[in-house]
C-alpha cells in the first residue's frame, strides 16, 4: 500500500520533473532579463523584486489580493486550454467574459431572490451567456469552415460594443452613469479577505470538473483525440461537429464564469464599469496562464496564481519608484519567458504536423 503510494508519487514526480525544471529555468531567465532591464534604466533590481514578493505574498491581504487577481485568469486560461486539447486556437474568452459579466448583472441586479438561489442563478446565467457567445464560432467552424481565430476575434469586438451598449442604455446605475447597477447583496459571494471571495472555490471546482471531463470520460477522450490525432479520431467515427460545439461551449462556460467572478465576486464595486475596465484583457491574460500552465487544468491554477502575484506585486515595484511602464515590461518579459516552452511545443507540433500531411 505505502510502497504503491511512494511509487505513485515517484511516477508523478518523474512526469512533472521536466516541465517543472523547464519552468524554473524559464522564470530564472525571465527574472534575469527583467533585472538587466531595470539595471539599464538605473533601478535596483533586487530591491524591486523583493518589494514585489513581499508586497504580494508577505501579508494576508497581499495573498488574498493576488489570489483574487488569479481567479478569473484560471477560467479564461481554461477556455484556451480546452480549445488546444482539440487543436483549436480559441481566443474568444475575452468577449465571452464580457457577456458573462453582463449576464451576472442582468440577474444579479434586477431580480429579487433569496441568498444562495440568487447567487447560483446569476452565476449559471453568466456562464450560459458566455457559452451562448461561443455558438456562432462553432457554427461557422463546423458548417462553413471559418477559422476560429478569425471568428472569435470578431466576436470579441462585437461583445465589447454590445455590452457597452447594454450598460449605457439598459443597465446603468441611475445617477452615476459611469457603471452598471451593482448586483444586490443576495447575489454576492462571501468576502474572504481583501477583494478575495468564495468565488475562487467555484472557479477551482469548475476547473476540476473540466479536468475530470477531459481525462475521465469518453467525451473528454473524444475531445482530446481530435486534437492529438485527428486522423484516428475521424477513423473511429468521432463526430467532429459535436466535438467543435462541445469544445467551444465548455470554453464559453468557463469564460462566462470568469466574467461573473468580477461582478458577483469582486468588492468593492460588484459591477462592471462602462469602460469594461475590470473585465477587459482577462481573456488575453488567460492565454498566458494557459501557456505557462502547459494547457493543463491543474497547471493553469498555479500559473494563474503566479500571474496574480506578478500583477498585484507590480504596484510595489512602482511604489519604489520604478517607472510604471518599465514595471509592465519586466512583468511581460517574465511571462513571455515562462510561456516559451509550451509555445515552442505548439509551434513544433504545427510544423511537424504540416510536414506529415505534406
Amino acid at each position: 500500500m505505502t510502497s504503491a503510494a511512494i511509487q505513485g508519487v515517484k511516477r508523478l514526480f518523474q512526469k512533472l520533473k521536466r516541465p517543472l525544471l523547464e519552468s524554473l529555468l524559464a522564470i530564472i531567465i525571465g527574472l534575469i532579463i527583467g533585472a538587466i532591464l531595470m539595471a539599464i534604466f538605473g533601478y535596483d533590481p533586487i530591491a524591486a523584486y523583493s518589494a514585489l514578493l513581499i508586497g504580494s505574498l508577505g501579508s494576508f491581504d497581499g495573498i488574498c489580493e493576488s489570489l483574487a487577481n488569479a481567479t478569473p485568469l484560471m477560467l479564461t486560461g481554461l477556455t484556451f486550454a480546452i480549445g488546444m486539447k482539440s487543436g483549436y486556437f480559441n481566443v474568444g474568452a475575452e468577449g465571452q467574459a464580457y457577456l458573462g459579466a453582463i449576464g451576472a448583472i442582468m440577474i444579479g441586479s434586477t431580480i429579487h431572490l433569496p441568498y444562495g438561489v440568487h447567487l447560483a442563478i446569476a452565476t449559471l446565467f453568466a456562464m450560459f451567456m458566455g457559452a451562448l457567445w461561443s455558438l456562432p464560432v462553432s457554427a461557422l467552424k463546423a458548417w462553413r469552415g471559418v477559422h476560429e481565430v478569425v471568428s472569435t476575434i470578431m466576436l470579441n469586438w462585437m461583445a465589447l460594443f454590445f455590452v457597452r451598449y447594454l450598460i449605457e442604455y439598459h443597465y446603468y446605475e441611475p445617477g452615476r452613469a459611469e457603471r452598471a447597477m451593482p448586483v444586490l447583496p443576495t447575489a454576492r459571494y462571501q468576502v474572504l479577505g481583501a477583494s478575495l471571495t468564495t468565488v475562487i472555490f467555484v472557479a477551482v471546482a469548475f476547473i476540476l470538473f473540466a479536468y475530470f471531463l477531459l481525462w475521465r470520460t469518453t467525451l473528454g477522450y473524444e475531445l482530446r483525440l481530435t486534437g492529438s490525432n485527428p486522423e484516428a479520431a475521424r477513423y473511429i467515427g468521432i463526430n467532429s461537429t459535436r466535438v467543435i460545439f462541445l469544445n467551444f461551449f465548455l470554453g464559453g462556460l468557463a469564460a462566462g464564469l470568469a466574467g461573473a467572478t468580477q461582478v458577483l465576486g469582486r468588492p468593492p464595486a460588484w459591477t462592471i464599469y462602462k469602460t469594461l475596465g475590470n473585465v477587459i484583457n482577462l481573456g488575453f491574460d488567460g492565454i498566458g496562464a494557459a501557456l505557462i500552465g502547459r494547457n493543463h487544468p491543474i497547471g493553469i491554477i498555479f500559473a494563474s496564481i503566479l500571474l496574480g502575484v506578478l500583477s498585484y506585486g507590480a504596484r510595489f515595484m512602482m511604489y519604489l519608484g520604478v517607472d510604471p511602464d518599465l514595471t509592465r515590461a519586466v512583468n511581460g518579459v517574465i511571462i513571455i519567458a515562462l510561456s516559451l516552452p509550451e509555445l515552442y511545443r505548439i509551434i513544433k507540433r504545427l510544423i511537424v504536423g504540416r510536414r506529415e500531411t505534406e
Partner: protein
Amino acid sequence: MRRNTSAITKTAAIIIAVIIIVAGIGGFLYWWVRLGPAAPRKIKIAVVSDIGGRGDLSFNDMAFKGGEEAERDFGVEMIELISKVEADYVPNLETAAKDPDVKLIVGVGFLLSDALVKVAMKYPDKNFAGIDTYAQAIVKDKYPDKYPLPNLMDIKFEEHKGSALVGAIGCLLAAYYNEKGGNYPYIGGVFGIEIPVLWKFEIGYKWGCDWALKWYEKKFGRKAPIIGEDSRYGTGPNWKDGMYCPPETPGECWYKGRVLWTYTGTFSDITKGYEAAKPMYAKGAIAVYNIAGPLGLGINRAVKEIAEAKGLEMGPPFWIGVDADQDWINPGFVIVSMIKRVDRGVYYATKLTIEGKFRDVVREYEGVMTLGIGTKILGIPMEGISASTLKDLDEFVKMGINAEKLTGKKVLPMPPEEIKAKVKKMRELVAPWIWEAAKELEEKIRKGEVEVPCVFTKEKIDYWRKILG
C-alpha cells in the same frame, strides 16, 4: 533523452547557484548602502491616478502637477501610483496607506469613490482625499452611523459658477459677431447622460448667458443684436421684447431660450456628440459647450467640417472646453474652457494635512471641501474654478509636450509655439469687453454680489428650465 534531462538539471543547478550568490551579494550591498547615513524622513503624499495615468492632459496630469507644486512649497515627497484597471484602485490606495511616512492619499476622479471609502475605513489614521468623488455620500448611505468619516474628504468644484462664466462669454461672443453682421441667435450645449451633476452645468451656463445679455444692455444702452432682441424665442402673455417675464419672478425678465441643449444619453459615444452639435451650428449657435467628456471630440469634428467647407482659419464657429484646458485641441476654434483646478485640490489637501487642519475641515464641512470662485475654507480663500487663460494654455501645452515624450505618440495638433500664437490671436480678435465682462462676473461672484443658481434637484431644474428655457 536521459542525458538531455540531466544536462538541463545541471545547467539549472549552476544557474540557481549563481543567482543565489549574486542575490546574496546584491542584497548585502543594498542593505549596507541603505543603512548608511540616515536622511531625515520626509512626509510623503501619494497620488493614485485614474486609468491612464500621466499624459491624459486632464485630471491625472493636473493632479500630479498639484502634487509637484506641493513638493516645491511644503517639502513633501509625492509618490505616484498609476491605476491600469479599475481593480487597481483599492490595492493602490492600500499600498500607499501601508507606508508609515505617507500622511495623505489622494484618489483622482469620481471612479475611485467606492475604493476610497473602503480603504479610508481600514486605515483611520491616514488622511484620504478624493478629487470629484462622492465618497462621503456613500458613507452616509451605507454606514450612516460613521458619517462623516473623519479622515475622508471629497474635493468638489463649483461647476455652476464656471459654467456661468463660459455661458456669459458665449452669448457676448454672439452679440459681438452679430454686431459685425453675423447671424448667431444661439449658443449650444452638448450634455452626457442626464444625471443631477449635469444640471449644475446646464443652469449655470444658461444663467451666465442671461447675465451677459443684461450686462450688454446696461453697457451699450441697447439690446444685443439678434440674440438679445429677436422675437423668435417665444411669444405669448408673459413675453416682452424677446424676454420672458414669468409670474414666478415678478418684475424680472429673462433671456429665455438662447441656449440650444441636448442630453445625448452617453459619455462615450463620440459620434453622438457630433450628431448633437451639427444641427446646433446649423441653427446659428456661435459656440457649443462640451459637458460630456470625450464627446467634445465629436463637437470638434462638427466644427472642423464647417471650417473646412468655408476655409476658415479661426472661428466662429467655436466650441467650449470642460474640466481641463481644452483650448489646445483645435487652436483658434476653442474660445475658452471651464477648468476644474484639480491641481489646487491636491495642493490644498496637502496644505491642510501639513498644518494639521485636514480633519477640522472634514468635520466642519461634513466631509466635502468645495472649491470654486470666492470659496473659503476655514476662513482662508481657496479657489478651484476658472475660465481658461493663456497662462493655463502654457501649462497644458507643457503637459502635452511631456505626454508626447512619455508615450511617443503625437498629442498636440501642431508645434507648441504655433498653438500658443493661434490661441493668442483668436483671443485678441474678439472684442476685449467680452473678457472684461467675464472678469467682472467672476469678481461679482467672488464678492457675493450675484449668485449663480446651483441646481441639483428635480424641482429646481424644472423651475429654472421654465425661466431660462
